[in-house]
Structure formats: C-alpha cells, structure tokens
C-alpha cells in the first residue's frame, strides 16, 4: 500500500467519499460535493466551448479575414470565400449567435426566434434524412432475411424467432382494432418478446451502474490508497 502524494487525488478521494455518504443519509458534505460538481462542470463547459468553438471557428478566422487572408493562402480578400474558408461571411452566423441572447431583453426577445428557427430547421433536416438512411431503410433491409438456411439449424431457429418477435411486437402496437382473437394471441406473444427486451435492458442497466461503483472503488484502492492492481 502506497498512499498517493498527489493533492488532486486526495481531493477527488474526499469528494468521492462525500458522495458515498449519501447512501447512509443526506448530509452537508454530500451537498457540498454536489454543488461543487455543478459549479465546476458549468464553468469548465463554458471555457471549453469558448476556446474550441468560438475562438477557433469564429474569432481567429474573422481576425484572419480582417487581414485579407484565410485558410486558403492562394485567395486574397476579406470576402474571398470558398467551402471551408468563409472569411468575413462568418459575421452572418455570428449575428445569429448574438440574436439568441436577445431573450435576455424582453422588448426584443422575439428576435431570438429567428436564430432558433434556423437551428430547428437545420437539425430537423439533418435528423430526418439521417433517420431515413441510417435507421428506417437499413433496418427494414436488415429485417428481410431467409428463414431457412440448409445445414445451419442455429441460424434458421434464430431467423424464425427474430421474424416472429418482430411481427408480433409490431402487432402489439396496432391499436386500430381490439386485441381479440388472432390479433389478441399475436399481441400477447409480442408482449413476451417485449418483456425479454426489457429484461435485457434492465440487466444492462444494472451492469452500467455497478461499473460506476467498481470504477470509484478502483480509484480509491489503486490510485488513492496505492494497492497494487491485481
């Protein structure tokens, strides 16, 4: 056992124990760690966003544009733009960005909706085409598979199970007719498949949560207390 000599590790270990103390009951140490986390995270995200986005994608290119240059050295002029080198035209997205802050001034807060409309429009377009290509078409295509493959019983059983599960689960969400008769039987079978899915999801969730606990214990044992990793 070799205790860490790093002050940062001691602070992290103390904060971990403060958070763990909530398992016994709520207390001021837990509250302190919680509030510290929220404050530090917010500050870190703001600084990170400024230096990696606003500075590198807006301030620096605008500064270069003011000098008549850009990332394409062969072009000269503040507005001599091409794809990837937008120069002084970056003023336009900058204005849209500033418009978002008009929400803070009630008299002109309506102006923020212009920027929001643009953001919503762009993301709606990107998401719709992405979903259609990546999820809808590809998944329908992936669902169409032969039910029987000669000489491969395991594949065939899997394919049949998959197809029955897919159809019956979809039928469970068919609400235009009462779930009676054949539709009732199919939807009940669908429920069983859904239950198996939920069970797998729950198992994976447990694994994720236990992993977090293991991660903290590994930090306390190996990094802080210096037990050799076994």
């Amino acid at each position, binding site marked *: 056992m070799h205790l860490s000599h790093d002050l940062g590790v001691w602070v992290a270990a103390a904060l971990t124990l403060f958070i763990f103390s909530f*398992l*016994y009951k709520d207390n001021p140490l837990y509250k302190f760690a919680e509030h510290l986390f929220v404050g530090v*995270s917010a500050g*870190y*995200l703001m600084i*990170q*966003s400024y230096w*990696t*986005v606003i500075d*590198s*994608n807006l301030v*620096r*290119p605008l500064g270069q544009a003011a000098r008549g240059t850009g*990332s394409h050295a062969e072009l000269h002029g503040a507005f001599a733009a091409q*794809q*990837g080198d937008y120069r002084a035209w970056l003023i336009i997205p900058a204005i849209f960005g500033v418009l978002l802050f008009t929400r803070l001034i009630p008299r002109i807060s309506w102006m923020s909706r212009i920027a929001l409309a643009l953001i919503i429009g*762009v*993301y709606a377009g*990107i*998401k719709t*085409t*992405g*979903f259609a*290509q*990546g*999820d809808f*078409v*590809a*998944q329908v*295509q*992936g*669902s169409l598979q032969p039910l029987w493959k000669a000489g491969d019983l395991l594949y065939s059983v899997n394919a049949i199970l*998959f197809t029955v599960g897919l159809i019956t689960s979809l039928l469970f969400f068919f609400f235009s007719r009462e779930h009676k008769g054949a539709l009732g039987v199919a939807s009940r079978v669908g429920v069983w498949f859904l239950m198996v*899915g939920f069970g*797998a*999801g729950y*198992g*994976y*969730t*447990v*694994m*994720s*949560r*236990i*992993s*977090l*606990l*293991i*991660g*903290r*214990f*590994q930090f306390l*044992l190996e990094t802080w207390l210096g*037990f050799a*990793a*076994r």
Partner: protein
Amino acid sequence: MGFVDWVSRLDRRWIFLTMGLLVLGPLLHPLALPIHVTPPVRGFVTAVDAVPKGSTVLMSCDYDPASIPEMVPMTRTAFRHLMSRDCHVVVTCLWAGGAGLVDSIITEVAREFPGKTYGVDWVNLGYKAGNEAVMVVLGQGISNAFPRDYWGHDVKSLPMMSSVRDYSSFPLLVNISAGYPGTKEWVQQVQGRFHLKMVAGVTAVSAPEYYPYLQSGQLQGLLGGMAGAAEYEVARGEKGSATRGMDGQSLGHLFVALCIIMGNVVARVQKKKER
C-alpha cells in the same frame, strides 16, 4: 417475527453495504472468473485487424468523466490496438466534458510507443459543439469542422493531416460513446450516408439499442459496457481495469438477481396473507 417480515422491514442501507462489499472483495482478492470473447466483440477485433497497416483511422470518443469505468478501458485498448497496427489515428470528441479526459488517455497510451510522434502518428482534434452538424461538416473536410486541434495547432500544418481530406480518407470509424451524440448519430449521419465501416464501444445501459445495427451489418463489432471492454482486453491479451472489475460485476449481478427473487417471494407471501 418471521423471515418474510424481517425482509420486508430490512433497512435498505444493509443492501447498499452488501453490494459494496461484494464489489470491493474481488478487487482485493480476485476470483479469476472466466471471461469468454463473444461474437460482437470478436467482430470489433476482426474489423480493426482488417484495416491495412499504416491506414488513417477516425476515432471519436464521445463521453465525459461520468462514464470512465466503461469507456476508458475501451479507449485504451482500441487506441493501443490501432497504434500497434501502425495506423494513424485522428481522435475527435463531441462531448464538451470529455476532451481533456480523452487527451490524457491517448497521451498515456501513446507513451507505450516511443517511436510514435504527435502530429505524425496521431492527432487529437479535441471537442467541437454541434453534434450531428459536426458529423455532416466533417464529410465536407476535416479541417472545416476542426481548423485547430486540441492544443491549438493549425490542423493543416500537422504532417499527418496533409493526406486526410474527409471520410473517404478513413477505412474505419471507431466510436466509443456514452450516449447522445454518439453511436446512433454516427450510424445515421456517417455510416448510412458515407458508407464508412464502423465499430462501436458503448455503455451497457445503451447497448441494447445498438444490437439491431450489429445484426443489420451497419456495425461490424460492438463492445457493450464493462463486459464488452473486458472481453476486448482478453481478446488482445491485456489485463486492464475492465477485466479486473468483472469479478465484482458478476457477484453484484448475482446479488441483484437474489434481491429480485426475494422481493417477489415476499410480495407474494404478503399478498396471500392479506387475502
């Protein structure tokens, strides 16, 4: 007071304590329970092995410190795997809280390869806000979305980046993701649109969502949570933090299963008594 009454009145803090001890014990005294490499993980390893030596691979690490135990072992092993195959690696991060963490991990792993140099063998482009929009812009040119790397260098000035234009420069995308934006968005925006081969390592809680992508062939391989990370370590002959954590993981799962069974038994007995 019978057993059923005792269980129904049990202070839940005893359950927390038992779970803590079950997880802590194997970390101090490992049980060495077997770990088998499953087909999704084998697919991941095969896809990386299939990348021609010397190729440039895009690796997007989309997570933050909240997912360290699951994501960091995957990142370490995947980056080490790529470096050992002499691949050039372009690292990106779409989570604001993750850029510094990712940089510290890849720098630590890169030290194991003394002949490799930053800017020549790997580049960390750092964080960029914009989620799916960043993925789309990357398709028009890597330096369009990331004009500067994590350290503020002009991306075009880095030797490795002279041969990297857009997605067509990469034979494989390795995505290690803890949620949004992550694997789902990379599949929708990049794999589907640019037909780039892709493998993913994801948190266990989100893994069931991605198995359909694996079955349809949109993903070549999938690492699900700490178990996936441990299998990947085993497949690569490593003994990392995920492998060391799996004994505690298994005991924890047994305890949760036992609690579920006991809870159901108690509920049934109490229901009978009420009747």
